[in-house]
């Protein structure tokens, strides 16, 4: 795995792992439950202190506990959305690319229409009238978000499938009489994996942004506390204008961190998909001088390349 050697990918994966771990165990290690109130009489948010690491909000909830508990649903829903969207985009993209003709035209038109639709707005219109019981179901929310997110992946996958379909080895498989489903599953799809991975990451980034935005706007009211709902309460009480930075900054940064971690991983995947784009400053291409018209050569690799089968000295001079 060449991608794993890049420091960006390592940093991204490590960060992502920590965040995922926190999402899983967060509610368990939180000092208080998310709904715990320190005091029912005071209506003034408390600044961070030794007792409340991230302060409290207006209802005197411990914000550190809410931050720890809020990640679970947020991450679950965005990864579900990414997963569902990927399944959809493989189904549409590979079918369109492999079958071609009228099917391709129709599916491509469908994908293009979905690309032009502003997903967040449509989700608002759909979800606003839904009863709270339904909007707190992660599976439902994840799949609805996925419905607005598959088109980009389908488009990229279709283009790559088109290129693969014309490749010699796929042609060969067809000539020796392989069945179509076998060609698709064993010859085409494995070669789509890097693109699929990158599409997955983009969709998860889209998913977390969309889900938090919907919760922040108050369109959906999840059963449990999420980063988005904390932001929603902060917005409703004018936390930004009143200077209660400890209220909304931590969940906002948490969402931002997830996005950054995913983007860093995606950097590495990009370089695997297209090695020509490798940054000259990191990874394998470190020290390579790119000059127009000259093939860049790794200096450290040069001696090996010059003598692929090293000849032992003794035999060379009998």
């Amino acid at each position, binding site marked *: 795995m060449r991608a794993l050697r890049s420091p*960006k990918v390592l940093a991204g994966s490590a960060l992502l792992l920590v965040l995922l771990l926190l999402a899983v165990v967060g509610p368990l290690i939180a000092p208080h439950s998310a709904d715990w109130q320190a005091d029912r009489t005071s209506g003034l948010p408390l600044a961070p202190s030794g007792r409340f690491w991230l302060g409290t909000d207006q209802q005197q909830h411990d914000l550190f506990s809410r931050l720890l508990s809020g990640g679970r649903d947020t991450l679950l829903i965005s990864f579900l959305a990414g997963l569902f969207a990927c399944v959809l985009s493989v189904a549409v993209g590979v079918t369109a690319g492999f079958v071609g003709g009228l099917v391709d035209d129709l599916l491509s*038109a469908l994908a*293009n*229409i979905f*690309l*032009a*639709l*502003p*997903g*967040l*707005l*449509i989700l*608002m*219109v*759909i979800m*606003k*009238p*839904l*009863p709270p019981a*339904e909007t707190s179901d992660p599976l439902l929310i994840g799949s609805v978000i996925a419905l607005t997110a598959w088109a*980009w992946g389908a*488009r990229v996958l279709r283009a790559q499938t088109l290129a693969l379909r014309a490749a010699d080895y796929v042609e060969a498989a067809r000539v020796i009489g392989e069945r179509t489903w076998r060609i698709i599953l064993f010859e085409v799809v494995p070669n789509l994996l890097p693109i699929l991975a990158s599409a997955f990451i983009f969709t998860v*980034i889209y998913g*977390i*942004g*969309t889900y*938090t*935005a919907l919760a*922040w*706007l*108050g*369109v959906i009211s999840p059963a449990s506390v999420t980063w988005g709902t904390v932001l929603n309460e902060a917005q409703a009480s004018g936390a*930004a*204008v009143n*200077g209660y*930075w400890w209220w*909304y*900054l931590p969940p*906002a940064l948490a*969402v*931002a961190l997830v*996005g*950054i971690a*995913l*983007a*860093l991983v995606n*950097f590495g995947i990009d370089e695997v998909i*297209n090695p*020509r*784009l490798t*940054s*000259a*400053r*990191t990874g394998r291409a470190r020290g390579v*001088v*790119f000059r*127009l*018209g000259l093939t860049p050569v790794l200096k450290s690799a040069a001696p090996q390349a010059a003598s692929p089968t090293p000849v032992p000295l003794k035999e060379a001079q009998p």
Partner: protein
Amino acid sequence: MRTLLRRLGFYLLAGFAAVTLNFFLARLLPGSALQNALAKLRGANLDPDAIRALEAQYGTGADHSLLSQYLTYLSGLLHGDLGLSTSQSAPVTSILGDTLPWTLGLVGTATALAFVVGTLAGIVVGWKRNGLLDGLLPAVTFFQSVPYFILAFLVMMTLGYFGGLFPYQNGYDTGRHAHLTPGWNGPFVTSVIEHGTLPALTVVLASLAGWVIGMRNMMITTMDEDYVLVAAAKGLPQWRVAAVAARNAILPTISNFALSISLVVTGSLVTEIVFTYPGVGWQIYQAILTGDYPLLQGILLVVVLTVLAVNLVADLAYVALDPRARKEA
């Protein structure tokens, strides 16, 4: 010409699909979700006329068939009628007329800025691959991978609230001591520009990475082409060789732009909410808070049609600029 007709046909179809989707969205919802929403409105202080208009729009009162509702909706659209906003007791179209210029100004300026800056930066970064700038790419991606409204929060807090560099609320100074008359006069325009700086900066930062990275990658790919080598071999100065590569590398970014425009527009709408900017985005927030369904749907339709129109323009520009696109179809 055939390509042109095909594209036009696609956009007509897409526009029709959007209009139809907008009609059925409210009616396809499970259970009586919409009925509940409307029932809540009926409880509110609405005059009977407005309720009758609502019932006609959503077909909840009178027992018209779905088809006749659909036809009424279409003819309403053709007459420029998007229904009545329940929270503001004003036609949706007049609300949009007041707020759309703000949004268009914001998105337009920010996108133009992001395009110019991002493309130029992409050319330089792609040309000088070993340069320090290449190491800055992850920093640019940071802004792209953070959701718009989170980025807007961070910009507002750092530069607005704590930095105090720019105002971070409203579209122009509405304070008690400000005596501004909206219109083309100096003080008002200055105030609008000041108040628009942070929202525009957010949109520029968020969309910049797409331009820079897209352009950089295309530059690197294009620089391997023989004609760039020829240009260099002829002894042209560096910047002219770069220009030869850049001219061709810029084409795909135009279609990338068409792909990303819907994300940019939704992002800008959300940014408006953070900055209480008086555009369409702020109206969306109001409509959500008050359950103003006609306004929400009217905005959705206008935004979708605008995005489609921009896509069409980008497509036509691409066909005009790239002869290969004309043969393709």
